[in-house]
């Protein structure tokens, strides 16, 4: 069966085409102001990558914050459901899924058969999400992709007190003025977010195995902070940012 999953995230739109459980095409674009248009483009690009046409797709399920606006869909499921489904399909032993995207961080606890038992989401502020790292990389004047590797070089981590992205930004500025090395600040930023995410994971009663999905899973500095705070290794799928869309496509195959 060939299905599609469209993840209308708050910052990016991800589309995957799945054939018999395997990803055969995928594409990601910035959502921008015209998320629907971006979804159309990403859908066409992922079909092209799969060598298929829209007529080949038997069912489409949307997920993500903007899922109600996704084009062509038969139904939609939440980010909690799609993340758990995608992660569980790839790693059946998973019991906790941690998903950190641009605007939201979440922890999901699953059963052996992938059913969601409990979930916790970060509250209004961005302190548990990718937007926080972006704000901090701006404050440090470091490209976002360099923030992770940079934090791994930290020699003397400085604890960061601020829990809120706005206050954290001014704390970063103060640390810079105090001539704190950028590596140490980067590490503090990641530790701060990791502690927020770990408190979500603890809220749902996390147990291994832990699969880490969402775009922030590409950040090695954050992964390091998360593993230290969780005191366990996390599994990162090959395309962590596509797991929500993948889960949606798997759900489409069930409908």
């Amino acid at each position, binding site marked *: 069966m060939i299905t599609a999953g469209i993840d209308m995230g708050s910052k990016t739109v991800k589309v995957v085409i799945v054939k018999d459980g395997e990803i055969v095409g995928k594409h990601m674009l910035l959502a921008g102001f015209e998320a629907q248009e971006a979804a159309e483009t990403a859908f066409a690009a992922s079909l092209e990558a799969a060598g298929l046409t829209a007529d080949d797709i038997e069912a489409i399920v949307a997920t993500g914050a903007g899922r109600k606006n996704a084009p062509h869909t038969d139904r939609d499921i939440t980010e909690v459901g799609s993340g758990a489904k995608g992660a569980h399909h790839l790693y059946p032993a998973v019991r906790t899924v941690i998903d950190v995207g641009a605007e939201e961080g979440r922890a999901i606890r699953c059963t052996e058969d992938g059913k969601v038992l409990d*979930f*916790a989401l970060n509250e209004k502020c961005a302190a548990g999400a990718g937007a926080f790292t972006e704000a901090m990389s701006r404050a440090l004047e470091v490209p976002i992709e360099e923030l992770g590797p940079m934090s791994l070089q930290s020699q003397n981590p400085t604890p960061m007190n601020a829990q809120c992205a706005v206050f954290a930004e001014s704390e970063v500025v103060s640390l810079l003025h105090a001539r704190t090395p950028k590596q140490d600040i980067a590490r503090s930023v990641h530790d701060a977010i990791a502690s927020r995410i770990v408190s979500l994971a603890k809220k749902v009663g996390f147990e291994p195995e832990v699969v880490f999905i969402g775009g922030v899973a590409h950040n090695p500095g954050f992964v390091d902070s998360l593993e230290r705070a969780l005191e366990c290794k996390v599994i990162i799928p090959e395309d962590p940012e596509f797991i929500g869309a993948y889960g949606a496509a798997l759900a489409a195959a069930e409908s």
Partner: protein
Amino acid sequence: MTTGALYETKPLNCWAKAKEIREEYYRDYANAHENGGIRWAGGAWTFGAIPCGLGDDVWSLTSEPYGASIAANKLFSLRCLEATEKAGYARDLCSYMRNYWGSILLNEYAFGGPFPKPDFIWQDHICCSHAKWYQVVSDLEGGIPQFCIDVSVGPYHEINELKLDYVVGQMHDGIEWLQKTTGRTYDDAKLIEAVYQECRSTALWAEISCLNKAKPAPLDEKTMYSLYVLGTLMKHSKVVADFYEELRDEVRWRVDNQIAAIANERCRLMSDTQPPWGFLSVFRYLEQFGAISVGSLYTFGLIGMFEVKPDGTWGPRTTPQEQGIEITDREQALRILADWNLSKPEWQHFYSPHLKTEMMVRIAREWSLDGVILHYNRGCEGLSIGIAENRLGLIEAGYPVMTFEGNMGDEREFDLPKTTARIDAFMETLGIKEI
């Protein structure tokens, strides 16, 4: 019945009357002086039956429902909150209290006209905010005589005669104080009548809450908010007791005839603590999933008085009149009033979250719930304390729990899209799809 609906629904016949009683309450308070009467202010928890002994022209303004009324008017609430902050009070205090203080600071009554200054304050102390609330009111109004009763005698299962003596002794002192403050002679017969009515109205509310054990539920929690509020205004009044009797009969009829609160009930939930009053639409949002909040410990147990019946389930507490007790003097009336109020379910968990968890699990079981939605209410320290502990207890008892953060009286701390997104995810985990 609407095509495709599982159950017939119908608006409550006595709905308009409830609205009328509430409007009249706030009008009577405001107009008390014009009509030669007295105004007093105090919490919804206070022993409101006692000032009734001063006469039939004594009108009250209970603080929490007034704060909630302000909260439901988002623009006015914002002005009140900002006025309070401008006066230097911290933003993390009880949001009912901040709304109330703002109304005084702006000198605007939520129901029109200037804020009607009370002649005296009659309060009890159930939480730290309660203790300070009227001290500030008095200061802001240039000094208002106040009497406060300390009720911190522990949970009801530990009550004994000595503890009752402590509360009743203060009540006696309070009556002396009321006479001195108002210059009126106290009428024990009016006190006794008010105690009878309070027991009657609060037992009736418990009975109405228990009728919601039926499937389909005859009432949804959003509707219950507009009904239980009358008890928070004047639980000691015959008007409220009579209304609750009429409501009880109508709700019983709905149960007998399977008249549902929502047409497609297939998922039963409860909430906890005061809701974000400016966003009661959240309850309507649930309906698209066929989900209904059938009540909560807060909605049932702030006004309703319960007891464990011989079959082990909760039912309305047996009133003194049902027990054939004739109240003959002040001491007996006060003792019954103290004992009755100290058994209030919502009062118990001020002493331990475990007591609250026990009651919540009982509700979940007896009201046949599928899940629980907990409001992590930043606006109320009193009712939110230990709520994370309650969550764990409910999960342990096998009930799925969703939480959302908000504030009953400060809409700046509530995020509607995030909350509905959580509801979507929660429904999905319960296996419930939109209808």
